[in-house]
């Protein structure tokens, strides 16, 4: 029986890095899942996700955010990356990392690609967030690479990134 949920690639940082890229993603699966645990060395940091190296304004997103006292929602259209949340930054409690799952269904389909995201930045302080987000990459090409980067500074050592393929065949 074919394995349904397969690790394609992983990257656990042993030193700081400005970005992580999963490249040469095979066309063997139905959906992709990224699970990440990350911290960055900047003061206020968002994570940026791009597909196939596309940095044109082909991304949009709608998000819901709770900070422990209030909930709000926002959206962005025609931006040059999918940036659904902030990773734990240098101002956060030491040794805490944000966690997130990014679900990309039908990554081979010749339609625009939807993205499901759920991330948290709990760090036993007042600046903690929970954020589900919906994204869209307006491109009909199959996804063959995924870039993940902080918008400033670097991901710190110990940050981990795992890419899985899910097959419904």
């Amino acid at each position, binding site marked *: *029986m074919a*394995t*349904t*949920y397969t690790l394609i690639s992983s990257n656990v940082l042993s030193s700081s890095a400005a970005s992580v890229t999963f490249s040469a993603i095979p066309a063997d699966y*139905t*959906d992709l899942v990224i699970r990440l645990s990350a911290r960055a060395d900047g003061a206020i940091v968002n994570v940026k996700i791009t597909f196939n190296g596309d940095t044109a304004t082909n991304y*949009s*997103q*709608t*998000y*819901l*955010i709770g900070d422990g006292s209030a*909930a*709000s*929602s*926002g*959206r962005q*259209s025609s931006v040059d990356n999918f940036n659904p949340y902030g990773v734990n930054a240098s101002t956060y409690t030491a040794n805490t990392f944000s966690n997130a799952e990014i*679900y990309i*269904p*039908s990554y081979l*389909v010749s*339609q*625009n*690609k*939807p*993205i*499901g*995201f*759920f991330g948290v930045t709990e760090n036993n302080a007042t600046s903690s967030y929970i954020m*589900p*987000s*919906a*994204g*869209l990459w*307006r491109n009909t090409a199959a996804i063959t690479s995924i870039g993940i980067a902080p918008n400033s500074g670097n991901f710190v050592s110990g940050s981990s990134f795992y890419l899985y393929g*899910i*097959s*419904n*065949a």
Partner: protein
Amino acid sequence: MAATYEKIATTTLGSAASSINFTSISSAYTDLRIVWVFQAVSAGSNAGLRFNSDTGNNYSYTAITGTGSTTVSQRGTSNNQCYFMANSTAATSQLQIFQTDVFSYAGSTYKTLLTTYSGDLNGSGEVSSIVNLWRSTSAVTSVTLLFDAGNMTAGTTATLYGILKA
């Protein structure tokens, strides 16, 4: 090694339809996961599911939703289906996602579901987290994914996975 995450069944619509059925679900797993990638045809439809063809008022839900400008939390009790999304947007060309986990589906207690809806439509959008309850002690043996008004487009895909703890 036993597989932990297995496909049970998958359906891709060859033509527009208002529902997708998974039947004869075995009790071999611990939890179920449903991944539903769709385009809605009609505005105002409520999307959700029923178990074991139960159309009684045995379902309830609590949801939190962001629309890009507002947030809202809603709940409903004694409904005749699980609700994942209310008032679909018509005829969008963008794919949308439901990811649903059904916990302890073969047990003899009421069944809890946790669903995430992700629908950015390039100009509008919505994201929701929804918990549903089916007040039945029966094991889940069938699932009907449905729109209560209008259809999903051809190409809509739904896959049922089984998750095993042992």
